[in-house]
């Protein structure tokens, strides 16, 4: 008698287990925020030494690529107004890779400096747009030196533990001939303190 009833239905009804798991699942789905720690890395210049006067700038004017932004987010690139921010990348590349051909552009990549100045009233959005353009320009130029695309070079730069081959490739792109030597193709981006003019 008992045996036959056992044979009939002996399982625990596990159908509602799924519902319980669903409840928990939905809770975690809603609370999950995927950490998105990505962005543009930048190193600030060191604090100025009060005992030392600021160094004199003896750069030739042709070696400085000037980008100015006013408080209305209007651009002045090389003393000419510019509408489209996304043209800066190609302008910078032309400027740095000039190698003395055009007398208005840089002597060589080692001397070339990109100077970027905003106003206190400029928006952060345009600052990031321009910084991104400058980064893209240099990544593409570095990539071209070792036969990569800009994106591939960026991947290489972001690799933390580089293999010796990767390290050699990276140093070659940046023009570092021996360990500790100054790069012959440096990334000279100078971000000036914002002006307080307003207009």
């Amino acid at each position, binding site marked *: 008698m008992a045996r036959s009833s056992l044979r009939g239905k002996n*399982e625990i009804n*596990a*159908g509602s*287990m*799924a519902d319980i*798991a*669903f409840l*928990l*699942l939905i809770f*975690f*789905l809603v*609370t*999950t*925020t*995927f*950490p*998105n*720690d*990505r*962005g*543009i*890395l*930048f*190193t*600030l*210049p*060191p*604090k100025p030494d009060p005992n030392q006067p600021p160094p004199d700038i003896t750069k030739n004017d042709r070696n400085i690529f000037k980008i100015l932004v006013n408080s209305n987010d209007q651009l002045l690139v090389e003393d000419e107004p510019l509408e489209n921010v*996304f043209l800066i*990348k190609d302008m910078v590349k032309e400027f740095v890779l000039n190698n003395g051909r055009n007398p208005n552009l840089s002597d060589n990549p080692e001397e070339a400096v990109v100077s970027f100045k*905003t*106003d*206190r*009233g*400029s*928006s*952060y*959005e345009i*600052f*990031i*747009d321009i*910084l*991104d353009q400058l*980064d*893209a320009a240099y*990544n593409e130029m570095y990539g071209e030196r070792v036969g990569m695309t800009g994106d591939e070079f*960026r991947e290489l*730069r*972001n690799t*933390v533990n580089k293999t010796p081959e990767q390290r050699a490739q990276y140093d070659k792109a940046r023009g570092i001939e021996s360990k500790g030597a100054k790069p012959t193709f440096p990334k000279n981006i100078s971000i000036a*303190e*914002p002006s*307080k003019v307003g207009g």
Partner: protein
Amino acid sequence: MSKFAKKTKASQDIPTAALPDIIFMLLFFFMVTTVLRETDILVKQTLPRATQLSKLEKKSLVSHIYIGKPKKTNLYGTEPRIQVNDVLIEPKDIVLWVQQEKDKLEEVERDAITISLKIDEEAKMGIISDVQQQLREANARKIMYATPERIDETAGG
């Protein structure tokens, strides 16, 4: 005919015993990947997008500063403010905050601290510059402008 009908009566329902297992698998995935927010963000955060991104490797070395228009404008006004941890602060308090953050790290790692700046796209460069001056003062010079990736390819090139 009657034989056939008997057979179908024997077991009609689909076995659902494996369903909880599948759901549990999903559940564990989300439990493991979930990072519960420690801070309530008091300022508006619409980050600008960029293309040339780097990823931060050591999460323990990162401290966050949030800048943007306060969400509670009747309490804090409409001008962009700086938030660290759970409070809104003035630029001059940043040096002290950086010292506190550095104290949380191992001694050898203190100079490797990275400040992640999460800044609303509508914020002005004036307040950002003030923050950066303070960070230079505090000798926390490695910074990252947090920006999600730009989706459209035409503008980014």
